[in-house]
Structure formats: C-alpha cells, structure tokens
C-alpha cells in the first residue's frame, strides 16, 4: 500500500461543497466521507447525484468551493494536479479510451508518463490484461474500435490500475454493458481489487448493483450523502471470493457471480484419443457413461460412447467436448452443459490441459451448500437490506 500508517484513511473528504456558476443547488453539498486503505467502496446514485464530481474532486479534475480533500494524510490542494493524477488511477464515464493507441499503449499511458522501463511496462500490461480476463498476447496490439464493449471496459480498468496507484477511481465502468457482462466484470473487478489491495472507489447508478460489487455502498442524492454501509467491515481474506451476493441472493444470481475456479471439479474416466484399445477398456469401466478423449497434449477433444467406436463414414464419432476455465461463471458453464448435449463440461487449466469435469450435480451442490460464509454474510445482507429500504431511491 501507500506506506501510510494503518490509522490514516486513504481518502478523506471533509465538509466538501462544490457549486457551479448558473446552478443554484450545489453539485456536492457539505460531504464528509472516509475511505480506508485497501477498501472497495461503491458510490451509488442517479444521474446528477454528484458521484462523478466526488471522484473528480479527489484527483482535482474539479476543485471544491469549500472543504478539503485529503489523500493519505496529505491535502490534495497542495499537490501538483498532474503529479497527483499519476498517483491516482482514474477511469472517466464513457471510458475515454485513446482510439489512436493500441490496447497496450492505452494501458501503459501513466507508466510511460512516470518513465517506467519498457520491460516493466510490458510486464505490467500483460499482468493486468490477464487479471482482467483478456488475452495479453492477442489483445495488446488491438485498437479500441476492434474491442467489444466488455473488452473496452476491461482495458479502461486496466489503464486506471496500470501505474500501481494506491488509490483508483472508476466512474461507472460497467455502463452500457449487457447484464451478464456487467455481472461477470463486477465479480472480476472485486477479485482483482482483493488481490492488488488497491483502494478502489467505483461510481455506479444502481445501489442494488453496487451492492453486488462492494460490501460498502455509499448512496448519494443531489450532492448529499443518503446512506453509507458499515465502514468497519472485516477485511476479506485475500483468497475469499466476493460471491456474497446479497438481495440478488437467489441461487440463480449466485450462478453469475461464482466461477468454475471456485469449485472442485469432478473425476471422469478419460482415455487417449490415439489409443483405441485404451478407449475400449475405459468404456468398459465407465459403465455406460461417456468417456472423455484427450489429445497427446492432454487437452479434451470429444466425448464418446460405446456406439461411437463402431466404424462410420462420418469420421470419428462422439460429441465435441466443450471446455471451460476457472474464470467462466457457473451460469455460462451451465449454459454450455445444456447446449453440449452431454450434461458436462471439461475444466481445463491455463494451458488447455484437462483438470476435471463439471456436471449438473456439482453445480447444484455448490448452490445448495454455500459453505462457511453463511453466518457473517447473512448478517451483512440483512444490514444492507435495511439500509436500502431506508433509502429514498
């Protein structure tokens, strides 16, 4: 982290007001807010609630009319704006990717301003793209207009985090994405934050959706603080998943926020594709269930049953194997199972090698159990629900 003592908040707004010429009501009104180091906070509120302005006050894109903004114990008003902004990650609304730069150049923009070496920049770009679920090798040379909205949002987030800032501000990074993409990216973002321990403030419109991302939600309305989650929440264990989805709390919602990597895949009988005798033997042992054939690299190729081994004119029989990796949500994995016609998908590691199999039973079991988290997360959920009812939104 930033090296500050544990007691010093990463960001502190003290009675901050911002008024704009020609508008009677202040955009932000006497707002006092603290964000702890390493905390993930969602800032929610409708259009015009002042959440964007709050973010922009922190990195001095706008200046307060009254009050002060303190970053790690230092008043931002005393820091040169450009130097300050190189220390704070920022993603503006609408992403604002640089269309004439490649993905890698976009991400490395602040590191370059800071004079990082090329090796260090390349390494950081690959690391962040990987963490955010892109393909560093294939994607780093592409241009923004070649990206899907979900990919563009990932690049924007990577750019904000690139210079290893202790604090990053993301202004509605998920806007304009489809529902499933939003859920996917929200859980991904929470995991990345838990891993990097960056103090992260994310502005979003919908408080319910914000609650899916962060366990502390600050709700603003017309520049005033309406509600604030418990600031003293227990720090999550680094490997703990942010799958404590409240309210959306049905099993189905959890499907979108739990990943294949969170489950232990099951065992299945496999055989080498190039070994007919071994395949026949495996089919005998499997007792009628399909057998997964692997290629010589250990990668799943297709599922076969006994009848598929009989000679046929259509080439090799069986069903092409659908594979998923750790970062796929259970929702998408389930979808793949339903369309694959086998009722199971193969789980692979980063190299594409077979790691196990996921089927309906495993997914159902995972949704039923929701192990070890039940106590505290239920309590948190209850608290949040009460807050939301109290909010006028």
């Amino acid at each position, binding site marked *: 982290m930033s090296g500050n003592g544990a007691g010093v908040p990463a960001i502190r707004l003290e009675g901050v007001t911002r008024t*704009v*010429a020609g*508008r009677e009501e202040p*955009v932000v009104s006497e707002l006092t807010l603290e964000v702890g180091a390493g905390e993930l906070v969602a800032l929610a509120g409708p259009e015009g609630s002042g959440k964007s302005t709050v973010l922009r006050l922190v990195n001095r894109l*706008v200046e307060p009319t009254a009050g002060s903004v303190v970053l790690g114990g230092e008043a931002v008003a005393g820091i040169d*704006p450009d130097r300050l902004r190189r220390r704070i990650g920022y993603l503006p609304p609408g992403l604002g990717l640089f269309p004439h730069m490649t993905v890698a150049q976009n991400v490395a923009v602040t590191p370059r301003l800071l004079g990082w070496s090329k090796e260090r920049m390349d390494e950081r770009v690959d690391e962040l793209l990987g963490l955010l679920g892109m393909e560093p090798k294939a994607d780093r040379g592409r241009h923004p207009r070649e990206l899907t909205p979900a990919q563009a949002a990932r690049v924007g987030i990577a750019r904000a985090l690139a210079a290893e800032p202790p604090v990053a501000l993301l202004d509605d990074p998920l806007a304009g994405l489809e529902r499933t993409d939003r859920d996917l990216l929200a859980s991904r973002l929470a995991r990345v934050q838990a891993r990097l321990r960056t103090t992260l403030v994310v502005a979003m419109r919908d408080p319910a959706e914000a609650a899916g991302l962060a366990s502390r939600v600050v709700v603003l309305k017309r520049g005033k603080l309406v509600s604030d989650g418990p600031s003293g929440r227990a720090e999550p264990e680094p490997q703990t998943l942010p799958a404590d989805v409240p309210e959306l709390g049905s099993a189905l919602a959890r499907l979108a926020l739990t990943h294949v990597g969170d489950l232990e895949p099951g065992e299945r009988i496999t055989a080498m594709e190039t070994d007919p005798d071994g395949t026949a033997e495996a089919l005998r042992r499997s007792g009628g269930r399909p057998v997964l054939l692997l290629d010589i690299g250990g990668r799943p190729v297709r599922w076969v049953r006994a009848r598929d081994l009989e000679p046929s004119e259509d080439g090799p029989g069986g069903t092409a194997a659908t594979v998923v990796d750790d970062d796929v949500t259970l929702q998408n994995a389930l979808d793949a199972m339903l369309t694959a016609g086998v009722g199971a998908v193969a789980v692979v590691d980063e190299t594409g090698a077979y790691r196990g199999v996921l089927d309906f039973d495993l997914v159902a079991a995972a949704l039923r159990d929701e192990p070890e988290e039940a106590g505290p997360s239920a309590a948190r959920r209850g608290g949040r629900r009460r807050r939301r009812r109290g909010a006028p939104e």
Partner: protein
Amino acid sequence: MSAGRAPAELPALDELRLARDAGAGLRIAGFLAVPALLALACAGLWLHVRRQHLDALEQPHLTADAIRDSLVQHLVMTGLGAGAAVLVGVPLGMLAARALGRGGGRALITLGNVARAAPALGVLVLAALLVDERPRYEAAAALAAVAVLPVARVVAVGLRRVDRSLIEAARGVGMTRGEAWRRISLPLGLPAALAGVRVALGIAVAGAALAAYTGAGGLGELIRDGIRDERDVVILAGAVLLGVLALALDWFVRLAEALARPRGT
C-alpha cells in the same frame, strides 16, 4: 471556462452549454455585421477616390459609368457561369450521392478535388484561343466548366447525410413518392444544393475577374490595368469592389443556407 478558476479544470457541461449559446449569439451578430462592413468598405473607397487627384490613366476607370459597365459585365459572366454550373453540377452531385453510399464514392471525391486544381485562368485562356468570338459568353462557359465538378462534389458530400433509409421509412409510413420528396428529400437536400450554389458563385465571381485578361471585361480590368500602369488607386478600387461583390454574394447564399437548414441539424 472563466479564467478565474484553476487552470487544470475542465469545464462542466452546464458551463459549456452557456458558452455555446453565447457562441451562437456571436455568430448571428457577425452575420448581421457583414452587410454593414461591406457598405462601410464601399463608402471608404468612395471617399478615398474623391480625395485623390486623378490623372489620365486613372480617370477613365473611375467614372460612375465605367464602373457600372464593369460591374454589369462581371455579373453577367458570374451569373451565366454559376447558373450553368449549378444546372449541371447539382443533379450530377445528386446522382453521385447514391454512388457515394456504395463503392465509387472515394474516386468521386478525389476527382472533384483534382478538378478544384483546374486553373480558371488556363481554362479561360483556352476558351478564348479556341473560339475568339464573343468573349463574355466564352468566359461564362469556361467558368461553368471549371465549377461543375467542385459543385457536384460539395452537393454529393452534403447529401451523404440524407440516408436512403429515411426515404424508405417515409414511404413505409404511407407517404406517396411526391410527399416523401417534398417532406424528406427536399428539406434535407436543400442545404446541400445551396452549398453547391455557393461554391459555383465563388468560383465564377473570382474567375470572372480573370476574364479581364482574355478581353471579356469585368471588375478584373481595373486590377489588370492598375497593375500594368502602376496606379494603386485603380487597383484599390477594383479589389475593393470585387471583394465586396464576392462577399455579398457569399453572404446571400449563406443566409439562404441558414434559413433552409432544418431545425435539429
């Protein structure tokens, strides 16, 4: 936007909007100022010439009759040349606009651009050498030839905004062909056609000045003779009158363009 605030700051949306309104007001003010400025230039020229003691080389050019004749000659050449260029160039541009949507658009833009490089002076000279009968009409024909492709180009580019799907949509909601033309194509296409008129007039009015060198008369004669005889007052009179004429024509067409532009574009 105001200078008093911190320089690092970007203007908020509201502030931008206010400033933009101010910009529109300024533009309207500038628009209204043009006729006044042009009148002022003419008055200044008149006062200046009156105060001069004119010699034998200057006097013949600067009588009211001589200037009126030059002006009429100039207007005839400009009007005929621009008129012919519009009559051919605007329909050509409309046809080309359809090709723009498809493949051949780039080639047309390039052709129109290269055609802008055609030297009006050269084409005037060629016309004069070829026919040598009635200089004024030859000049008008030459100017029309020079202007026609640039006119077609600006019309085609302007019409690109009129999406064909709009016409289809209009037909789809039950407009007849004629209604669709009157209520969709015409209001959206009129500004483009007027831009074509403006380009034609600009090329013709400037080119007609060069027609003085092929013996067709016009305001260019004052400048030509003034340069030849080294009489600054004659050059000044020709240049100011020519400039005022060109800017007045440009202003009229721009006024028409502003009035014809559908709201919301």
